[in-house]
């Protein structure tokens, strides 16, 4: 018998993130690098750690190797505990049955025995799709104060974008009266962030019912939340006003990185009271050579900069050789930009090499991408919006 926990977090990390193209060819979306020394999953995990949530189940399915290796014992997030900790939960066989996770709700359904071990009062459902710092403890307190069965974190989005989101229409007491998935004519601009707190007993009941319905797509947004709303369960919206950025597409991932280069970035990663933790390799400090020109950049350990870098993010162990130019770009861990190469408005993925005479990206237009581990040969030109994934 394990000790009771007040709240267990379940992080949905099984999605492919196909809109990230070649960046998620070999890894699940939550493992995609961000901001020089982080990966997307560091944000929800650090949020848990900073919120005092110490049991986190990570549901994996698509390309889990890199993610598993990254999470390992959970030590970087202080989640290597005797009582609690981090657990990677892939789908598994039971008796004669056993199947892949069919949807977000089914993934949690299949792991009900895991959650029940801790006999929690609440379950926090998270995803690995966003860059944000959030105190989940405050959200759980809001859930309790409102006597809610479900609480959904919402964020105000620009009205013109509201029709891209799941929109929550609320009354004056934050109680959700209506939920509309991607409405054509939105009645409010409170978009669901995909962060939910449920009272465990209630969620359990709805997961079981949902599973018995063969027509259900077993999804929180499409099935569970509408069903609870229909039955008149107490559902409240919890407003979050901090930085929150979806990094589900190449363009938005690039933008979220560039946001860190603002004069005063909206998301403060220096904050010692709410640290974002990451597994770091402990490399040498970055070396900036006499030939280097560095202007408005974020550079991290293990980098060697001998060329010109401007308005860019350079991740662990990246190398920019003498005479190379990097502008408005994200260079992921271990990538090498050789002497004379030019990189503009681009994402160069882990351990990729841009050879001397190569050019990646253009000064305007869509973001160019070089896939993990590939070499862009001399004379090659990767145009705006192109994804280079050869060899």
């Amino acid at each position, binding site marked *: 018998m394990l000790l009771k926990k007040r709240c267990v977090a379940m992080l949905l990390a099984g999605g492919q993130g196909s809109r990230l193209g070649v960046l998620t060819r070999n890894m699940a979306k939550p493992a995609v690098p961000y901001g020089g020394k982080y990966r997307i999953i560091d944000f929800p995990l650090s949020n848990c750690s900073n919120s005092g949530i110490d049991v986190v189940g990570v549901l994996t399915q698509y390309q889990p190797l890199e993610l598993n290796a990254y999470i390992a014992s959970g030590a970087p997030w202080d989640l290597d505990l005797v009582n609690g900790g981090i657990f990677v939960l892939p789908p598994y066989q039971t008796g004669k049955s056993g199947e892949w996770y069919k949807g977000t709700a089914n993934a949690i359904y299949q792991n009900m025995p895991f959650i029940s071990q801790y006999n929690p009062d609440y379950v926090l459902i998270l995803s690995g799709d966003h860059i944000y710092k959030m105190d989940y403890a405050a959200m759980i307190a809001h859930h309790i104060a409102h006597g809610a069965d479900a609480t959904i974190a919402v964020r105000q989005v620009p009205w013109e974008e509201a029709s891209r989101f799941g929109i929550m229409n609320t009354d004056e007491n934050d109680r959700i009266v209506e939920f509309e998935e991607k409405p054509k004519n939105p009645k409010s601009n409170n978009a669901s962030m995909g962060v939910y707190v449920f009272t465990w007993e209630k969620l359990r009941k709805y997961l079981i019912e949902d599973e018995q319905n063969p027509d259900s797509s077993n999804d929180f947004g499409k099935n569970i939340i509408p069903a609870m709303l229909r039955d008149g369960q107490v559902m409240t919206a919890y407003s979050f006003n901090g930085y929150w950025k979806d990094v589900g597409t190449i363009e938005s991932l690039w933008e979220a990185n560039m946001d860190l280069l603002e004069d005063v970035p909206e998301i403060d990663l220096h904050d010692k009271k709410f640290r974002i933790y990451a597994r770091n390799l402990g490399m040498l400090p970055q070396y900036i050579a006499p030939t*280097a020109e560095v202007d408005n950049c974020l550079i991290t*350990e293990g980098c060697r900069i001998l060329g010109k870098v401007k308005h860019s993010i350079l991740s662990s162990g990246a190398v920019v050789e003498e005479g190379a130019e990097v502008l408005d770009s994200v260079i992921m861990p271990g990538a090498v930009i050789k002497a004379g190469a030019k990189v503009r408005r681009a994402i160069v993925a882990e351990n990729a090499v841009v050879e001397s005479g190569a050019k990646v990206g253009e000064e305007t237009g869509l973001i160019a991408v070089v896939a993990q581990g590939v070499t862009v040969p001399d004379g090659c030109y990767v145009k705006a919006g192109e994804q280079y994934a050869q060899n």
Partner: protein
Amino acid sequence: MKNLMGLIYTGERDSQLKELTTTRAVAAMPLCGRYRLIDFPLSAMVHSGVRNVGVIMQKNYHSLVDHLGPGKEWDLHGKRSGLVMLPPFMMKENVGVYSGFLDALRSNLHYLRRSKEPYIVITDTHMLFSARFDDMLRSHIESGADITLLYAKNENVRNSGAGRYMVVEKDGRVSGLEVDPAQPSMPCTYLECFLAKRELLIDLVDRAVARGQYHLTRDLLMNGIYSGALNVRGFEHQGLVWQIDSVQAYFECSMDLLNQETRDGLFSQDRPVLTKLRDEMPSRYLSGARVSNSLIADGCVIEGTVENCILFRGVRVGKDAVVRDSIIMQDGQVLEGVEIQNCILDKNATIREHNKLLAPRSFPMVVPKNILI
């Protein structure tokens, strides 16, 4: 490798480091942006397969304990192995301050007796080099030596003060050893690191202390060599060695590390130097920053000019500030318009707006910890 244990001595040799070692042991001296001196022997031991490492502490060891913690960063936090901290404890025959390395060993004989590995490698911490103790053990076993001393040729040693020198014959036998001569007469430098059978060492320490001897090099090693009682052999360390025993030596060593080749020699790809992590965000270079030939750790924010410098984690260099040939330790702040040259700012020092601190290269200025100028 289950047959070698390690012991790190962190006590002596700090008198010339002045303010830099008033609140920390030499072993805890910050180096190269994010490391401390003890990281080098400790990582070298771990990479050589050592799974049992004792750290003998003496004075001002708070920062050392804080740095090492349970030894997680070195994978030394297991049940069957690990890091053993050995601070002094008062007893009838132990007054808390060791009269020398030998005395320190005697005080910790209980730990040596309790350990199971047949061989032990012992090293001090004021010498900086990247050792391969597995190779040293192999050589020790092959040569049949009682004790193997690690040495380097004098020309490979950056040494500004006193040293310990030795003569190694062609067959590897050590035929001479001298301590702190005014003019060294021997061609090799003893790196104050040796390897022996654990039980032999316990026996030697026991007998030496019983005769009232406290100096390891003078009393135990030298006697053994010159009387022929011990078969002492040398094992050569091929790379560079820095003896960090004065402010100047520390400063020059740091400046040497701005050279890529020098760095490559000390930090090998396959045996990285491990250290405590701090979860700082990447460093931010704002518009107007001009950085050249410098090593910068994470968490820095740079708006001014930085040339030939080492900046530790969390350092701020303000607008129009000019920092040249200097070392700024963790969380140091150099505000707007400040000019600095040949300075060592200890942890958390702050230089207020428009101050000038210009020291000559031969006498770097030390700004102590937590000082505001």
